């Protein structure tokens, strides 16, 4: 497993979590696995960063939570994207696009 991922840029984690929820509601572990999957295993979100981020984003109103049943019929807390959350995802996506473009340009220039 990759060991770099702990050093995520501030804001990048939010973006990844929001993105992972686009397809539908997930519980904490699910989000973690989904992020791993969509980033091709580059990012492994540890509970130490995942939980505070989830709770913060919930209080921001970007995601909402409810108690549901997991695949193994276990009670688990699920998260889903809210309307402000989708808007936030758009904003973050654009921002990230700009940043990665800029950094890419910077690195290509001699």
């Amino acid at each position, binding site marked *: 497993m990759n060991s770099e991922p702990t050093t995520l840029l501030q804001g990048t984690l939010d973006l990844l979590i929001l993105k992972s929820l686009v397809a539908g509601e997930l*519980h*904490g*572990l699910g989000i973690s696995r989904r992020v791993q999957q969509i980033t091709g295993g580059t990012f492994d979100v*540890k*509970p*130490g960063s995942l*939980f*505070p*981020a989830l*709770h*913060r984003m*919930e*209080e*921001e*109103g*970007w995601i909402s939570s409810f108690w549901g049943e*997991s695949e*193994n019929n*276990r*009670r*688990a*807390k699920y998260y889903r994207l809210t*309307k*402000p959350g989708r808007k936030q995802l758009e904003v973050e996506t654009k921002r990230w696009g700009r940043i990665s473009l800029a950094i890419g340009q910077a690195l290509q220039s001699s």
Partner: protein
Amino acid sequence: MPLFVKVRSFLRNLFSIRRVEMGLDEEVRAHLEMLAEEKIAAGMKPEEARRVARIEFGGIQQVKEQVREERVGHWLRSVMPDCRYGIRQLRNSPGFTAVAVLTLALGIGATTAIFSIIDGSLLRPYPYKDAERLANPVVFSADQFRAWRFPAAAFVDFKKQNHTFEDMFGLVNREVHFSRGQVSEPFFAGSVTPDMFESLGIAPLLGRPLTAEDVRPGAPPVFVINYNLWTKLLDRDPKVLGNTYTVDATRMTLVGVMPPRFQIGGCDLWLPLNITRDTFVPGSGIESNEIWTVGHLRTGISPETAAADLQIIAAPFQKDDPIYFPPHFKVVVNTFNSESVDRDFKFGLFALMAGVSMLLLIACSNVANLLLARATTREKEFGIRSALGASRVRLVRQLLVESFLLALVSCALGCLFAFIGLKAIVAMIPSDTIPPEAVIGLSRMALLFSLAATILTALICGLAPALHTLRTDAQIALASGGKRLSASLRHGKLRSALVITEVALSIVLSIGSVLIVRSLLALQNVDIGFKPSNIVYARISWPDGQYESAQQKHSLFRKVLDRLTQFPGVTAATETSSYPPHTFGWTTVVVSGKTPPQNRNTASIMCTEGYFRTLGRPLLRGSLFSQNDVDSSRHVVVVNQTFVRDHFGEEDPVGRQVRFSDFETLADWPRDPFFEIIGVIADAKNAGLQDPPKPEIYLPATLTAAGPHNLMVRSTAYPLAIIQQIRSEFSAIDPDVAVGETGTVASLLNHQYFARPRFLLVMLCAFATVALLFVAAGVFSVVSYTVALRSHEIGIRMALGAQSTQVLAMVLKRGMRLILAGIALGLFASYFLARALASQIWGVSTTNPPSFAAVAALAFFVGGVACLLPACRAARVDPMVALRYE
């Protein structure tokens, strides 16, 4: 919408935290179990899977704490337990808490007390409406103060033609006799334009103020009194309104009583007065027709703009009234607040404020040191807390909360100290130093100030231990079991810096006090030019309508003087218009054959032949008055050396002619205005101890009835006996003549010249002493603490053969190094800071080497004693005991 979500979360976090926490618990547990299930599904054994899941998850408590810290309102939520914990911590070490609270309380209390004085006498001395805009014009000529009251015509023009004042009223002071029944007493009355009451905006306590109706022709005479008069004379009887009293032989009705702080013009009572261009305004003696002109500046108008405005209006008066408006005169507008106390006292207050701020800083660094020492011994506790998930920020906040708690308790105690201390300080402020309107006490403003000082204190005190904690490594703290040598030595630097600062601050404060002491001593050694001891003065109050000529007054005096000189012990006695250090009447003296001077700076004293012997003023040239000169009002004058120097240089003044242009407007002034100089006496101080004497001129007391006619007696008898004798002589001859204020000239001098420097001195010395005590305590606690930390090391040294004297020397050397560094820094700073005190220091250089040396020696001694005690303890360390704990 997001805001709504946020508020809901905040409320939930605040009020149903238990449910939120349970949710978090369950979420974490579910997460862990799902992780484990994942592992099991991948083929792990259940136990192994759970273990790996836990490792992958990380510290459960830490994760939870991190989540908690992300919550809205987390800050508020966690402060309460911090406070509770802090209180418990402080209660657990009552000795430390008591010392810290007492130290801070003294610092905060002293600062609050001095701020209260500044607030009461400089910032908000006057209770009147918009007092910060109240101002009055004065006139200067060539940088010399000339007039602060003006003739009626000037007042009327100022009031009518100005564009810079919102309103303007006039007030004329004079002494009146207020009688009820048989008793008649002199009081200070202000004849005022009635709009004054509206302008000042203070409602009477009882009855009504004076109004425009009261100055209509034919209006019944009425007056208003101040609170003191009501209390003193009328026993605070509310039924006195509407009663009639005799004020200067006129029956007047009392219509109002003003509240305590209404003291405008320093008057006891106010009479209505209409001022037109040709009103003759009754005033005291030669100061009739002089109107004190006061008003509110319009909003946004500066005193300079107003002065320029009035300058134009006053310009035409230069021709008619050169006494008030001399050629090249300059109008200056003074705001009330800027003139509430004189410059020296204002400066003294600021010096005191600087002094107490240093005291507070010393107190802060002392407590910071104590807290730092505690923080080092609490490293284990903090290590455990951070292992359990507390963030650095959280730990630092805990420390700050504790120092805030300390500071808050100290603030409460400090305000109590300030409240008690202020009573003592206010009693010590020399009279006539602050305006009568000013009230000095713990105002709301002062309490706010002390709160601000407290917050600052808490931050300063809490900073050092907080920094310390930030640098502490939890693992090392736990591993070494809380007894750490390396760290304590490392952080010794911060402690050392604090001690050095403390010592330096106290040096600055002590040097300031020593310089003030030296200048007071120098002042007391000034030769004032006469012998002030054994002189009694008595103010004489003349009944209305009698003794209207100077001769009538003089013949009464002659009888009293003759009888007094018979009294055993009396060596000389005189009738006089003024007694030192006060001078009644500054005049212009024109010497025949010379260009008339443009200033009114000559002190004129009306007296009889006994004056010079009473004060002990030696004659240098010519002759003094004879009894015949005085009795027959001969046109002769005596002058002092400065007068001769100013007007004649090397010429012989005796026999030359002078005239008094200012006095020639007096009704009873002789037709022939020329006077002959018959003698020259030696100079004596008459314009303060620090300044060279002003010119003086002496005239026979029989020339005019205007101005005061008082009595001065030199005797070896007990002053009270003489005063008793004076009273009985007057009442034997004419019981209507009242003897007013009495006392000794020495006490007047004392009050005038020494009271203020002494006030400053007592305060500064008190602060400097407390500061030195703080420093001693600070040095003691730091050295003791270091010794305690190093007792193990000292034990090893002694076990290896170190002598106790060597250990003693080692500890002493460490302590004294700090003190010497502090002394050096303090002396260096004082060298520059003492210059700021220059205006308060006299007769000694601000960098006076013996003063600096004495203070340094004192600090060295005090610091040495404070080091010696713990050093002795170190020397007695028993190696067996010290090493046993290893």
